[in-house]
């Protein structure tokens, strides 16, 4: 009899041990495939790129598969400091960043304009969102046609106004702004949707209360509505900044960095150095990518920091 009770308690203990193991093991089993893929394709390559940025490497391997790069220490970075093309790219990236943020006020304006309840407004809202859904390749082609010399609508328009048409994409001083304008089109649409959703959730009683106190128009917007739109603004800033710094497609489609390299941005210049026509300077390209990554990390850390605060507050 004693034996039987013992074995029962033993098996109960065993069962709870199994359950305990299951509870502590389960998250890692669920995480394993995702972590493996993400580690292999995202985290590990970041480490590799940083390492690679200290080497001179043409992307080729020796006959037995050995790495044939030469260690140059900070050499690539030192070269970047005096590379005029890098400077152009960096400056252009800051133009992108600054002007892309125009998507916020414009997006908010359109959102306010569309935030009404009239017949067919849902269709209007989704049609306004359209530019975001289509590929940047298509957006780039559309705007290239729009800017085309001699017959492009923008060219004809400037010709009609000033007597002399402006071929935006062929003008080294204007080209970056022309491309940014194309990029703003879908970005504004995205910001607009964020704000429309935000406006939907603005507390009506606060609006009414403020109205009774005589607030309206811009005052109402600034003191009552905007504070409530902060979560939307935050996300909008993040996606806009990242969109601006990631800009590659439009530059590649519309100008290939030209004319005379004047529309390059870091992401495009990196591609050009590592894989482009004159390219296969993998280490140098990696160094450019590391700089871009460092700039981006400033914003990513801000985002993570805010998430951390939100998470630990709850």
């Amino acid at each position: 009899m004693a034996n039987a009770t013992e074995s029962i308690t033993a098996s109960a203990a065993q069962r709870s041990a199994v359950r305990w193991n299951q509870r502590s093991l389960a998250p890692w089993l669920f995480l394993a495939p995702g972590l493996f893929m993400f580690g292999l394709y995202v985290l590990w390559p970041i480490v590799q790129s940083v390492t690679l940025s200290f080497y001179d490497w043409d992307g080729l391997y020796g006959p037995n598969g050995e790495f044939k790069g030469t260690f140059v220490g900070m050499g690539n970075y030192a070269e970047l400091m005096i590379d005029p093309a890098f400077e152009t790219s960096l400056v252009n990236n800051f133009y992108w960043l600054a002007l892309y943020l125009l998507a916020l006020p414009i997006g908010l304006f359109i959102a306010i304009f569309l935030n009404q309840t009239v017949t067919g407004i849902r269709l209007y809202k989704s049609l306004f969102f359209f530019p975001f859904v289509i590929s940047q390749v298509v957006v780039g082609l559309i705007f290239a046609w729009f800017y085309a010399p001699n017959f492009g609508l923008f060219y004809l328009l400037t010709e009609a106004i000033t007597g002399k048409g402006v071929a935006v994409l062929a003008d080294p001083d204007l080209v970056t702004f022309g491309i940014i304008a194309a990029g703003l089109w879908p970005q504004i649409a995205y910001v607009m949707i964020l704000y429309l959703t935000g406006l939907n959730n603005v507390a009506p009683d606060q609006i009414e209360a403020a109205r009774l106190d005589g607030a309206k128009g811009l005052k109402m917007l600034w003191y009552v509505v905007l504070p409530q739109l902060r979560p939307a603004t935050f996300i909008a800033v993040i996606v806009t900044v990242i969109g601006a710094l990631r800009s590659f497609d439009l530059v590649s489609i519309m100008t290939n960095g030209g004319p005379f390299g004047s529309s390059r941005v870091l992401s495009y210049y990196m591609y050009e150095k590592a894989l482009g026509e004159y390219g296969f300077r993998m280490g140098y390209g990696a160094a450019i990518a590391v700089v871009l990554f460092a700039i981006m990390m400033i914003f990513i850390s801000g985002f993570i920091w805010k998430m951390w605060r939100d998470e630990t507050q709850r």
Partner: protein
Amino acid sequence: MFPRPIQQSGTGAQWLYTIALPVALLLWLFPLLGVALTSLRPASDLAQGNYFGMPSGIAWENYVFIFTETPIGQYMVNSLWVTIPTVIGAVSLSLMTGFALAVYGFRANILVFFMFVAGNFVPFQILMVPVRDMTLQLGMYDTWYGLALFHIAFQTGFCTLFMRNFIKALPYELIEAARVEGVTEWRIFWYIVLPLMRPAIAALSVLVFTFIWNDFFWATVLTQGVDSQPITAGLSSLNGQWIAQWHLVSAGSILAALPPVAMFFLMQKHFIAGLTLGAVK
């Protein structure tokens, strides 16, 4: 409601609004309308300099031409071959990671979570050389699966953020109750959480579909020929051949834009819910 409902304003303002709406939309979509119109414009119009006037006829032959004389059909098929496995892969992986991060309070939880979130925002260029190199080494360069595998891995970052927040919002008592009943963790995931995730899965699937269909950078870096290039990269290389043949460029653009647009209209509610996740609290 902000701004004040237009119905409460005077008749003049209401009229103005009714007129302003379609005019604003027309201006906003003008570039797109221009392209749609050009895609149906006969080549002779362009030759005569009629780029923006009324087309002299409707030229469906532009579309016939790009389907019969160029590999655009193949490019679209390639896009599907990359996009569909990516949607399935990224959504499945992130359902599991999201579940793990939302339901279990293990020590590294928030660290792992932030790693996915941060990784999702890195510039692609920092991944470019190593990922291309690895794809080459594995013999998957210039194949649909080489491209799809990368996309699955990268999209897992964004999708995990999404799924984790969604699962976290589910009533936790359901899971607790099941555990008291002795249901295993895997069955909790499969029979309790998964059925509740349908709207999230729908939202994420349309989003990922659109992102991947529209991807250009990785298509350029990891593929090169007609046999594996997706439509975005294909369109860009065709653009080089069709110098100044804007009726063909336009028709190609419209075709490339069609699937995500159709997806958006079919699943609008889910699409927007997915994009605005986190924008409202």
